[in-house]
């Protein structure tokens, strides 16, 4: 599973048609999704976690849950890319050279993110996360225009520095363990076993570096500065992958250290998660109110949702359950939102929300899908995000965190009103005369309505296997020494 996407991406250089490269990516990510489902079944069928390569690789309930979300985001993104780039090919903006690079980097990104999720060695996890930055940087600036190159440079520099800080945190956490047995100190399982014997001061310092470092890649405020630029300039399937999963992969790295730092300094890690999370809910609220670019609006919305997830992890077992559920819901809703705005942006020739008007008439699938996905993102019932946000609020109430609750509700309310105002204008406003209605492809109907259907279904009913998977994953985050 680790090597196959990478090999397929390189094999794509032998293909001579851009569409065939996109089909190859869709096929590989489809098979990857199938393999992830089988892996999930295997993890939950076996009482032991899966280990390999001399304990360097490890799959447990927490990682397999994220692998499923990764597979879902990538498979959806690859299917959408077929439709999205078909129009770019027709307009001469996506030739074979670009397609080969895109295919190789897109699939290499999948391998790198999987490496992050299956690494028991925390150094290897860092290598995987740094690799995601390097392979996806070019995807941001694929079309090579000035704003895209600016966005790529900011992404590269800010995230490289952030990830360097995360490496410092990784080293400090290894240094906090008794060093008698050498190489084991970088293994997550070793640190978990030795939690009671770690140096608390070093582990606290390590967590500060880790949350700032990986938090930069996760888009937590105030380290989120690269995110709106990169998301707004990248092609829509790449933006969907960034928001749908890459940010979660970075947060996953922080959360892996949470039970370790909590064992040495109770409350420290949770307070840090809540602090950065709350700031990430409040900061984007100010930017979304006056936003004019639809993709930047969705990017700031990702900062908000990663903040909600971070808050959840800091709020006890109920909060961790809500955070994991929210991770899945956000991946689905944000992917669909980027698909919709990406396709509408092609039709209107702009991401300016003043220009995109009457989208429901311009595209009978992506117009309603934009409305549905944004309603889901702002937490309207019966979409699943309403349920996971409600669980987060319940966790705050259970811990009597009234100030946190008040500020959280202030942030999400401002975003709710602002995004609702923006999306109603885009969907129901008066369509410009030069925009003709488009006959949708059956594939886009299937893709959009399956994502929307899943969001509604999860909002009203959680399948017992999914509940079991989330509970098992939450137990790992909140395990006691």
């Amino acid at each position: 599973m680790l090597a196959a996407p990478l090999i397929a991406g390189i094999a794509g250089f032998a293909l001579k048609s851009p569409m065939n490269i996109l089909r190859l990516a869709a096929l590989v990510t489809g098979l990857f999704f199938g393999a992830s489902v089988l892996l999930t079944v295997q993890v939950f069928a076996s009482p032991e976690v899966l280990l390999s390569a001399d304990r360097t690789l490890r799959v447990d309930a927490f990682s397999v849950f994220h692998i499923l979300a990764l597979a879902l985001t990538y498979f959806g993104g690859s299917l959408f890319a077929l439709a999205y780039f078909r129009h770019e090919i027709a307009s001469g903006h996506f030739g074979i050279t670009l397609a080969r690079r895109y295919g190789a980097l897109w699939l290499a990104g999948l391998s790198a993110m999987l490496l992050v999720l299956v690494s028991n060695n925390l150094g290897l996890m860092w290598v995987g996360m740094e690799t995601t930055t390097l392979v996806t940087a070019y995807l941001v600036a694929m079309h090579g225009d000035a704003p895209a190159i600016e966005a790529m440079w900011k992404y590269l520099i800010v995230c490289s520095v952030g990830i360097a800080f995360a490496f410092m945190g990784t080293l400090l956490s290894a240094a906090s363990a008794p060093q008698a047995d050498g190489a084991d100190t970088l293994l997550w399982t070793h640190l978990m076993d030795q939690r009671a014997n770690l140096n608390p001061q070093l582990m606290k310092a390590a967590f500060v570096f880790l949350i700032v470092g990986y938090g930069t890649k996760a888009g937590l405020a105030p380290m989120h500065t690269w995110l709106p630029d990169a998301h707004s300039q990248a092609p829509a399937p790449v933006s969907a992958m960034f928001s749908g999963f890459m940010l979660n992969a970075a947060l996953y790295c922080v959360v892996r250290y949470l039970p370790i730092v909590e064992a040495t300094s109770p409350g420290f890690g949770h307070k840090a998660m809540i602090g950065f999370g709350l700031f990430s809910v409040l900061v984007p609220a100010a930017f979304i109110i006056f936003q004019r670019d639809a993709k930047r609006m969705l990017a700031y919305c990702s900062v908000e949702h990663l903040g909600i997830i971070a808050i959840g992890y800091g709020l006890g077992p109920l909060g961790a359950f809500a955070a994991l559920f929210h991770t899945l819901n956000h991946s689905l809703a944000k992917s669909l939102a980027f698909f919709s705005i990406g396709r509408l942006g092609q039709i209107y020739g702009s991401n300016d929300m003043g220009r995109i008007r009457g989208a429901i008439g311009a595209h009978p699938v992506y117009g309603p899908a934009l409305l549905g996905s944004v309603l889901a993102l702002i937490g309207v019932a019966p979409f699943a995000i309403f349920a996971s946000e409600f669980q987060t609020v319940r966790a705050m109430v259970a811990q009597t965190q009234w100030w946190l609750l008040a500020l959280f509700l202030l942030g999400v309310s401002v975003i709710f009103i602002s995004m609702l105002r923006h999306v109603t204008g885009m969907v129901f406003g008066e369509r410009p005369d030069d925009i003709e209605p488009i006959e949708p492809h059956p594939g886009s109907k299937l893709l959009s309505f399956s994502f929307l259907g899943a969001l509604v279904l999860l909002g009203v009913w959680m399948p017992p296997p999914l509940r079991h998977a989330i509970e098992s994953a939450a137990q790992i985050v909140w395990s006691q020494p």
Partner: protein
Amino acid sequence: MDSHTLAILNILLGTSMVSALALLGTTRLRTCARVLAGQGLAVGLLPALMSDEQFTIRIVVLMVGNIVLKAVVFPWLLLRVCRDVSVRRDPGAFIGTGAAVLVGVLCLGIAAWLGTMVGASLPSHPAGVYIVAFFLILTGLLLIIVRRRAVMQVMGYLTLENGIYLFGSCAVIGVPFLLEFGVLLDVFAAIFVMGAALRQIHAQFSSDDATKLSELSG
């Protein structure tokens, strides 16, 4: 550690520290690339001198790999980029070089405090090692913030990376060879990608002035 080794160690630590201050105070990019090469050589040699182990193949391979990349390949790549995009000097974006050196001296104070505090809980090494490691990290950050040229920001990133490498080699014992090699490979890939990005920036903006990269905001 015998007195000769200690003397060499102190010279290398001093070289690393002075190189960082020199980077802050120099505007000529070619000189900066050469200073960075000297820093790469000093930082590459330091862990081998501090190691309790004998000179195993693992230590030699990592030391040579680090020195070849940081003292030869990266400076050469940066010099080539400077030549290709025809940039010679970086006067600084927010503050001049004199002020940058003064802030650098302040950073040395912060590094001394951090290095002494964190070093107390870490494997014992001559006191200056952790201080110099933190100083390189802070100087790297400072270079990224206060310099105008994108190529200088890459040099800042490399200085920061040198600091983290020095810290890691002293603080953590027994990191697997493949992992150290993987990290080195990642840094190499990062510099390679940044070099390619610099050429794209120059092609698009006819300059590598990072302050011009400000169209996207809000």
